C-alpha cells in the first residue's frame, strides 16, 4: 500500500509577508505587492517594476560553516525556520533520525549581482571610458590575487543553501535542483518520491529565488518576457486579461514540511493538508515558449489526476501557473479545457501571480501554500486586474474578488521555461 504524504509545516518569505496567514489574508483582499523597483534605480531599463521583499528578514549571519548574508541564503533559511517552527520540528543529532530526514531545495540563478566585481574591474582596467574592449587576462590575474573578488564569484554558486537547511533540520539527504518556473513543485515531487519509496519520513522542500538584479531584469526584458507596464505597477500583472504583456519578476522563498502520514500522527503533528497526487511532463519543444496546444501542461495535469486516482470533476479549484504572458495563459487555458472537459467551464481557476508576480523557483511551493490555505479557509483568492476579456482565455478566473467556496481538492500548476511542467493535487487533512 502506498505511503501517504501530508503537509505538517509551511514557511514563506514573500513580497507580501513572511507569515503564511498574513500572506493569504492579503491575497484574499486582492492586494498587489508589485511596486517600482526599490533595490536600485531602474529608470534606464525597460521593465521597472517587480515584487521585492522590502521588509527586514531577520536572522543570524552564520549557521555552522554557512554564510547566511547572501540574499538567497537569508530567504531560504528564514522560510525554513518558519516551516520547521510550524511543524514543531527541531534539528536532530541522532544519525538514525537524520537518515530518515531530507531536504530538496530548488534554486534560481546565482547572485548575478555582478557589480560586486566592479572594484576588481576598476583595478584591472582603470576608469570606464566607454571602451568595451577590455583584455580578460588582466582581470583574471588581478582577480586571482584578490580573495574578495574570488569570494564574490563564490556567491554565484548556490550549492550551500540546501546543506544549510539540512543542518537546520538535521537531515542526511540533501539535494539542490532547478526546473525553472516549475522548480518549487518539482521539489515537492522529489520529496514525495523519497517519502513514498520509504527512503525518508520527513522532507523539507521548496524553492528560493532572488532575480531582481541589475543584470537579470534587463536580460529577461530582452526575451520579451517581462511587462513594460511601468506606470501602473499594481496593475501590471494581469494573467488571462487581453492586455497582459509579460510577467513580473519576484523574489522570495517558500518551504513545506512533508511527512509520511503515520509518522506525523505518531508525533501528534498538526496536519495542514495532504499531497494527493503529482504529475510531471516535459514539452521537449522550445526553450522559451510553451508548446502552443498545451500538450505538456495537460499531460502533467492528467498524470497528477491518475496518480491521485481522481476524476477531473473531483477538482474544486485550480491555482493556475498564470504568468501574464500571452503564450502561457492561452496554452494553459487550452490545456485545462482539454483535461477537464465540460467541468472546465465551472471550475474556478485563479492566478496568485497577479498579486505577487512570478517567484520563479519559489513559485510552486508558494502557490501550493495558497492552495492549502484555500482548502483550510474555504476561500479562493482572486486573479486581480481582470478588465478586458481575452477570447482565448474564457474560463472562470475568479476575477478581481475572492470567493467563498468549499475546496476539497485543489490543483497547483507550475510550468517552466524549457518546457518542464508539474501539477500538484492537494487535499485537506485526512
Amino acid at each position, binding site marked *: 500500500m502506498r505511503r501517504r504524504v501530508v503537509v505538517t509545516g509551511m514557511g514563506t518569505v514573500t513580497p507580501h509577508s513572511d507569515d503564511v496567514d498574513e500572506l493569504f489574508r492579503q491575497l484574499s483582499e486582492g492586494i498587489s505587492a508589485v511596486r517600482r523597483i526599490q533595490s536600485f534605480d531602474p529608470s534606464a531599463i525597460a521593465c521597472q517594476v517587480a515584487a521585492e521583499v522590502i521588509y527586514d528578514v531577520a536572522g543570524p549571519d552564520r549557521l555552522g560553516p554557512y554564510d547566511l548574508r547572501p540574499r538567497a541564503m537569508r530567504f531560504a533559511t528564514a522560510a525554513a525556520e518558519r516551516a520547521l517552527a510550524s511543524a514543531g520540528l527541531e534539528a536532530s543529532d541522532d544519525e538514525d533520525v537524520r537518515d530518515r530526514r531530507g531536504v530538496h531545495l530548488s534554486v534560481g540563478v546565482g547572485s548575478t549581482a555582478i557589480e560586486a566585481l566592479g572594484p576588481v574591474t576598476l583595478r584591472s582596467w582603470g576608469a*570606464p571610458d566607454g571602451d568595451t574592449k577590455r583584455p580578460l587576462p588582466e582581470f583574471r590575474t588581478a582577480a586571482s590575487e584578490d580573495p574578495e573578488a574570488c569570494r564574490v564569484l563564490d556567491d554565484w554558486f548556490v550549492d550551500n543553501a540546501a546543506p544549510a537547511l539540512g543542518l537546520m533540520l538535521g537531515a542526511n539527504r540533501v539535494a539542490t535542483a532547478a526546473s525553472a518556473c516549475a522548480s518549487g513543485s518539482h521539489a515537492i515531487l522529489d520529496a514525495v518520491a523519497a517519502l513514498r519509496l520509504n527512503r525518508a519520513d520527513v522532507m523539507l522542500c521548496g524553492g528560493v529565488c532572488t532575480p531582481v538584479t541589475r543584470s537579470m531584469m534587463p536580460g529577461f526584458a530582452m526575451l520579451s518576457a517581462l511587462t513594460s507596464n511601468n506606470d501602473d505597477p499594481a496593475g501590471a500583472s494581469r494573467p488571462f486579461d487581453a492586455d497582459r504583456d509579460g510577467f513580473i519578476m519576484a523574489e522570495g522563498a517558500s518551504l513545506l514540511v512533508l511527512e509520511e502520514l503515520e509518522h506525523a500522527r505518531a508525533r501528534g503533528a498538526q496536519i495542514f493538508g495532504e499531497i494527493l497526487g503529482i504529475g510531471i511532463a516535459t514539452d521537449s519543444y522550445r526553450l522559451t515558449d510553451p508548446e502552443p496546444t498545451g500538450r505538456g501542461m495537460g499531460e502533467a495535469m492528467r498524470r497528477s489526476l491518475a496518480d491521485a486516482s481522481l476524476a477531473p470533476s473531483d477538482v474544486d479549484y485550480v491555482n493556475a501557473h498564470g504568468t501574464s504572458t500571452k503564450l502561457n495563459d492561452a496554452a494553459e487555458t487550452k490545456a485545462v479545457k482539454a483535461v477537464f472537459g465540460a467541468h472546465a467551464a465551472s471550475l474556478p481557476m485563479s492566478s496568485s501571480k497577479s498579486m505577487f508576480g512570478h517567484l520563479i523557483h519559489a513559485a510552486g511551493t508558494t502557490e501550493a501554500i495558497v492552495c492549502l490555505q484555500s482548502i483550510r479557509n474555504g476561500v479562493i483568492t482572486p486573479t486581480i486586474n481582470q478588465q478586458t476579456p481575452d477570447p482565448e482565455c474564457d474560463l472562470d478566473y475568479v476575477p478581481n474578488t475572492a470567493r467563498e467556496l468549499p475546496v476539497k481538492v485543489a490543483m497547483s500548476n507550475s510550468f517552466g521555461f524549457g518546457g518542464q511542467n508539474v501539477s500538484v493535487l492537494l487535499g485537506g487533512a485526512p
Partner: protein
Amino acid sequence: MSAVVFTGYGAVTGAGDDAAFRALWLAGGTAVRPFEGKNHEGLPPGYGAAVAFTHKELRGLPGGRGLRPGTMTDHTFLAVGAVGRALAAGGLDDPAGDDDAVADRRGVYLGTYTNFPGLKKHLKLTHFMGSPEAAEAGNYVVDDSRINAGMKGFSGFDFLKLMNNMPTAHAAIQANARGPANTFLGHSSVGLQAIGRAWDSLQLGLASQFVTGGSGPGTLEGLCLAHRGRRQLASPGLDPASAARPFDASATGLVPGDAGAAFVLETAESAQERGATALARLVAYDERLVVPTAERGPLPDSSGIERLLRAVLGQAGWTADSVDLVSAGGSGLAELDEPEAEALAAVFGSSLSSKLVVHTGVVGFTEGGHGPLGLVGALQAMEDGQLAPMVGLQTPSAALGSFRPRATSVEADVRRALVLSVSPEGTVNALAVERL
C-alpha cells in the same frame, strides 16, 4: 519492483570521448596540459584538462542537429555532448522519430554545478556601469543610468542560458523526452545524485527510460577563480603531467578538468522490448550530508562517508569483499581525500589495493561530471576486464593504510562495482552496479 539497467553510456572529456578516455587511462596517461588559448590565458592554476569537443561534433550525434550551442553555457554544452554519445551507444539513434508513447515515458535528469557564464560580457557590463566620476577618485560606484547602455552586445539568451535548468531543457529536446526532467545542482556529487533520482523515478513508475548523468566545465574561469578563492586549487608551477594527485601525500589541490558523462538507464522491460543490451544493473544508491567544518571546506571526519558506504553495501546485499571495483572521488584536495581514504580503508581494508580506481589523474577534477565519469570507468572495466592504473598516485596518503597503487593496468573480472563521490559542500553519495 522492476530491475533497472544501463543500456548505454557516453562521455566528453579532456582526453576525448569515452573510448579515448579509457585508452588514455589504461595507458597511464593524462590529459592535463598547460592552459593555452584565449579562454584560459592568465587563469590559475595555469594548467588543466580542457575539452576540445566542437559544435560540429555535437551536430553529428543523435538529436544534435536541432540544438543551438550558442544558447548554451559550457555546462550545458558538455552535458548534451555526453547525452548525444549515450543516446548513440544506447541504440537511440533517432529519438525524434520515436512515437509519443515512447517519448512520454522518457525522462532526463542531469547534474551540474550552478550555471555560470563566460565572464567576458558580464565583466564589461560591470565595468561600464561604474561611475567615471567616482572612478577618478579610485572608487567603484554603480551608476544605474548606465545599465541599459552597458547591455549593448547582450542578447536575451545570455541570461536565459544561465537558468539552472538549461542543461536538462536542451537535453530533453535532444532526446525527445517528455517524461520527468530536472537538473540537480552542486559540486562533484550531483551527477550520481541525478542518476539516483532517475532510479527513484523509474521505481515509482514515472518513466520507463531515463537519460541521466552529469557535467562540469572545471576549467571555466569563474570556477577556477572561485576555487582559487577557496584555496582549493593545485599549486601553480607544477609539472602539469603529474599535478593531479588523488590520495597522494604530496597532493596540492584540485586540477581543473572539463567533462560530461551520461547514460541510458531504463527498466529491464523497456530494454527488453526494444532489444537493447543491458550492460549492468543499478542495485543501490544512497547519499549523506556531511556538514563541512568551513564553507565548502574540510569534512570533519570519515564517519559520514563510512556510514554511507556501509548503507549502500547493505542495500545491495553485498559484503565489502564481494566488490570487485571501487571508483573513488579522489579529488586531489587533501581535506576531502583524507576522510574519504580513511572511510575506504575502514570498509574495504587490505583488499582496497586490488579494487580501488580513480580517474582524477587522467582528466582532472571535473565537478558534476566526476561521479558519472567514475561510473563510465566502472562499466568500461566490466567490459574490458581491466583495472586501470592509479594515475597520479605515487605516495599514498597514510589514511589509505597499506594500500599499494597500481602503476599499470591489470586484468580483473569486474562484476560488482561501487562508485563514490565526495563533494566540498558536504554531499557524499555512492551507487552500486552489477554486471549482467
